[in-house]
């Protein structure tokens, strides 16, 4: 069984927000809902600035699922965390537990009126038999069509990768190995040799982790 994962290579992300736009377009999310966002740290500081694209990470031991009062989340065979909007009461607990700020709400009103939670589905739709309804409620189901998430597909620098964890990890590891030489490949920040080794090691660990996680 494939274990789906995102991977964002901060060395490549240029904060173009293409993934954000692609997601919005693929899933036609409600006004105010943005399933993916790009966070830039040390903005404007030359040599230090990094950007990272974040959405739901489809956690292995998902905190949102653990606190949801209606238990409306469910893991799929691909290791995705999806949820059932029919049972969602909009209490916001998932947002309070999620490390990545992934759950989104259409409103933030008096008496705790938030509407139904919406978050990244890894472009895998949701629990709805009728495809039209499914698309309305949960957005595109690209996985069923054999396609990968649109955010990653549209990434101009291929910083954002999405797919089978092992494959994604392999691609990344290969990249880091080539990047190890100065002035080579796509790196915006220059590395000392030792650091590159560390990165390669991280990548190897990651590849190992990915094959381990179920």
């Amino acid at each position, binding site marked *: 069984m494939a274990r789906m994962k*995102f*991977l*964002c290579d*901060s*060395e490549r992300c240029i904060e173009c*927000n293409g993934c954000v736009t692609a997601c919005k377009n693929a899933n036609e999310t409600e006004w*105010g809902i*943005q399933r993916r*966002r*790009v*966070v*830039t*740290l*040390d903005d404007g500081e030359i040599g230090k600035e*990094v950007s*990272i694209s*974040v959405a739901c*990470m489809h*956690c*292995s*031991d998902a*905190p949102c699922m*653990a*606190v*949801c*009062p*209606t*238990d*409306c989340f469910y893991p799929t065979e691909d290791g995705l965390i999806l949820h*059932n909007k029919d*049972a969602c*009461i*909009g*209490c*916001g*607990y998932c947002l*309070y*537990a*999620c*490390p*990545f*700020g992934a759950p989104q*709400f259409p409103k*933030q*009103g*008096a*008496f*705790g009126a938030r509407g139904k939670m919406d978050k990244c589905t890894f472009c895998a739709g949701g629990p709805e038999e009728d495809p039209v309804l499914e698309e309305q409620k949960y957005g595109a189901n690209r996985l069923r069509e054999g396609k990968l998430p649109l955010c990653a597909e549209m990434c101009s620098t291929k910083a954002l990768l999405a797919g089978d*964890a092992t494959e994604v990890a392999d691609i*990344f590891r290969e990249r880091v190995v080539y990047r190890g030489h100065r002035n080579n490949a796509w790196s915006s*920040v220059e590395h000392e040799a030792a*650091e590159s080794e*560390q*990165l390669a090691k*991280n*990548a190897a660990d*990651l590849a190992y*982790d*990915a094959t381990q*996680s179920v």
Partner: protein
Amino acid sequence: MARYQSVRDIKAWLILLLVVLMALPATVLAQQGADARREAFQSMPGTQPDFWRDAVQGVSGRTQSNSPGADTLIMVEGERWREIRNQWISPGGAIALGGSLLAITLFYLLVGKVKLEHPRTGRKIERWTRWDRTIHWFVASLFIILAITGLSILYAKWFLMPILPTSVWAAWMTAAKNIHNYLGPLFGLGVLAMIIKWLKHNFFNMTDFKWFLKGGGIVGKGHPSAGYLNGGEKVWFWMIVFVGLTVVISGLVLDFPNFGQTRETMQLFLIIHAGSSLLLMAAAFGHIYIGTLGTEGAFEGMKTGYVDESWAKQHHDLWYDAVKNKTKS
């Protein structure tokens, strides 16, 4: 007849007890700790060590997203909240509620109902005015509704969800949340009215001190003296004031998220709200027991407003004397 009555009452208590105790093991089930760090590490491996250090400590940056807290890459507090709520509040609350019911049941079985020592005189004294009773039952019924809906939010997924079809489950939870969130502020108003109306009866004095020394007359022989309210009732009143207002204020913070509260604020107030409301519920079981099953003749006071003279003399002798003196003069 009376015998049947108490058998039925005991059964009702035991069933309630069983339900609460059954909810317990489910909530105490071992829960694995979340590992956001590993999760993030897997998905952002290209990062450098110092950047990584910042990220896992909850550093904020810049983003185009407007959703609350979007500029923070990793919110570290979420894990702690999950742990406190799922590993402390849930099981702790079940233990408190179950323990309270268990203690009451044991007390009932060992000590039994406090009976009237002298036969009813048939003469009635007014104890609670129409206003008093209106406020009491307004707050009490809202309390029960808020308790049932609140407990559903906290516990129902452990025992209701497995037995209900998804559509019924979803409808019940949506109703519970909306009922809870709309009636909560009304409960707050009722509590305020109650505090204003009854404050004057509830200052402690030497009589209460002696009442406590004698254990409220529960242990040993002879009834300690008491005025209009005894020490125990005053303690319950002040619990409503302090714990009740904590529940109300924390509830209001949660109920109106439209003032831009951060996620961290909401986590804190959810913990305060759940903790204080569970404490209040555990104490309320005791109050309900004493006011109904536990004391012969107490319930009719809050129902009709009047108590029998022999009840008044037995439980609130000083108040009885004062009322008698007033009517004589």
